């Protein structure tokens, strides 16, 4: 008789005030209700180089609607207050943080209810000042680790994690958000190589779209990160589709194998 498969947590994602400031709040509420444990709130940026077409367009649309840094932090504050059981992270690009100032950003984000921030374009060699600011605010600068990271560089990235947080964001494949899934044979060894190097909680994103992807991560990662697929579900069928999308994933995350 097989071991019962361990559960995997769900990690969701929204772009601040997208598609609108009211709807995004409803979407966060849906996720919270469906048991999503961690939510990233993306502060939109005009040059989202790690994002694929869906998020790219959403970033530009949000900016065109006037969403700014202040509105994004307001959303964070309200969501964190409304959903105390959910962990909130900010996600954005380094320029947004840089313009605010490393320390000020860390302090404001922390004060607004975020546990940390995910910055896809800030490699760790250049993060020294920001890491210091995070440490001062007890705020996390979550490392992103792609599958082509190995050897000494992987060591270094994993060693960094506990310094700032207990979460590592592993990237399932090359490329940008929203592209095809590629859960190959290498996924398990890749995740194991991180586990071996770090006690941090491990999230896996980029290409997690279907209940079977979520299921596949049980026992391998602590969180399955779902972004583009959820936003696309919302685009197709509004809040109803969004709700049932998350419900399906939630079932896959904890149902007996």
């Amino acid at each position: 008789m097989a071991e019962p498969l361990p559960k995997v947590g769900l990690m969701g994602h929204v772009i601040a005030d997208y598609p609108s400031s009211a709807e995004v709040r409803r979407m966060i509420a849906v996720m919270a209700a469906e048991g999503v444990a961690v939510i990233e709130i993306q502060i939109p940026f005009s040059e989202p180089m790690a994002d694929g077409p869906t998020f790219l367009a959403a970033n530009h649309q949000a900016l065109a609607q006037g969403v700014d840094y202040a509105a994004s932090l307001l959303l964070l504050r309200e969501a964190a207050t409304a959903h105390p059981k959910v962990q909130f992270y900010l996600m954005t690009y380094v320029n947004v943080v840089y313009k605010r100032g490393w320390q000020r950003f860390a302090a404001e984000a922390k004060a607004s209810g975020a546990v940390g921030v995910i910055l896809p374009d800030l490699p760790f060699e250049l993060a020294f000042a920001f890491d210091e600011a995070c440490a001062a605010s007890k705020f996390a600068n979550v490392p992103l680790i792609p599958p082509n990271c190995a050897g000494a560089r992987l060591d270094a990235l994993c060693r960094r994690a506990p310094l700032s947080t207990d979460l590592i964001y592993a990237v399932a494949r090359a490329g940008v958000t929203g592209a095809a899934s590629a859960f190959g044979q290498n996924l398990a060894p890749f995740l194991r190589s991180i586990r071996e190097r770090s006690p941090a909680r491990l999230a896996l994103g980029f290409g997690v779209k279907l209940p079977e992807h979520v299921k596949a991560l049980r026992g391998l990662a602590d969180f399955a990160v779902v972004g583009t697929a959820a936003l696309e579900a919302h685009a197709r069928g509004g809040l109803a589709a969004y709700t049932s999308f998350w419900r399906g994933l939630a079932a896959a995350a904890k149902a007996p194998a």
Partner: protein
Amino acid sequence: MSILPLAPPAAPLLPDARGYFGAYGGAYVPEILVPNLLELVQAFDTARGDPAFWREYIQELATFSGRPTPITALPNLSKMLGGARILLKREDLGQTGAHKINNVIGQGILTRRFLKKPRLIAETGAGQHGVATATMAARYGFDATIYMGAEDVERQRPNVFWMERMGAKVVAVEDGARTLKDAINAALRDWATNVQDTHYVLGTVCGPHPFPAMVAWFQSVVGLEAAAQLAADGVKPSAVYACVGGGSNAIGIFQGFLAQNDVELVGVEAGGKGFGVGEHAARLAGGGGTPGIAQGYESLFLQNADGQMQETHSVAAGLDYVGVSPIIADLAQRGRIRAERASDLEVVEAVRLLMKHEGIIPALESSHALAAAIRAAPKLSPDKTLLVNLSGRGDKDIFTVAGALGDASWGRFLAKKAQEMQGG
């Protein structure tokens, strides 16, 4: 003495360990791209350490692109304007008609020798870098995909046509402002997706380290040549003018004169239609740019207080760029480069003057440098010399220039040709 620089710059422009030139530079990319950049750093180091590499590079430029390019005096213009003499460094005479070919050939040899990847990607603004990359890819047998802002595809359709004929795939980028910066983002996304088999042939001295240093190294051929040519003629310029899009032609020619502190280096940016947001692309001159990190590097960008990039404008597609080379930003901060701007109107007038009085058709980009020199010359004494980098030829700009000058017979001609193509 050979004018061709048979050895690379003695003191290449190199950043610190973090890829910084003073306060600017770095490599701000997704971690997935880090191995590619490290590999590129290593290849660039190897190339710099191997005299045979530079020799192959120069040899290829000589036989394929006709280097050295000459320096041309402008007797009529100088007579009309009075004051300082203006000389042109003729990058417009190179293969594909712009300085872009230098960098591209360099990266081509580097890819063939060290990176051994079969596929190339590139961004392009005016289309010149795209054409140069397509040219090199055809010649060296690479697959090539060129990202070009959809607006630039419109402005520079002839270049799109030639790129496709040379076998490159041209992707019109519809995101954001649909210009150069968006093409760079798109290329970076492609690179992040195709890390294994693809080299990104960045076209200017921007982007993540080692691109600024590497592109500057390749483009130094322009300045080394120009310095040798002027020295052979016993001429010392009082100033060197170059337009600044990303900054590669400027950094290229400036490198011949950086060490001579009494030679003023002037970078000319797109003054466009005015000083308002979205009316120009002057990041340095007029202080429009503020520090920021985007497109893989830290530098001065045209952005709002939140760090969102702003719209830009220039009559020249190749200058219509939101950021500027970290090397240029650093040299400007240190006072070694002076930044100026030239307006669209001044630029079209400079084009007109050079065609009419010297029989040379300059690129709209390069004409920014010329316009600034035309402004400066009359105020200087006749024993002074201004060297202008004529970074490219203007044939590609026929649609823009004909539009700006309102040439009616050109309009009728287009209508007729369009009809023929639809009918036939």
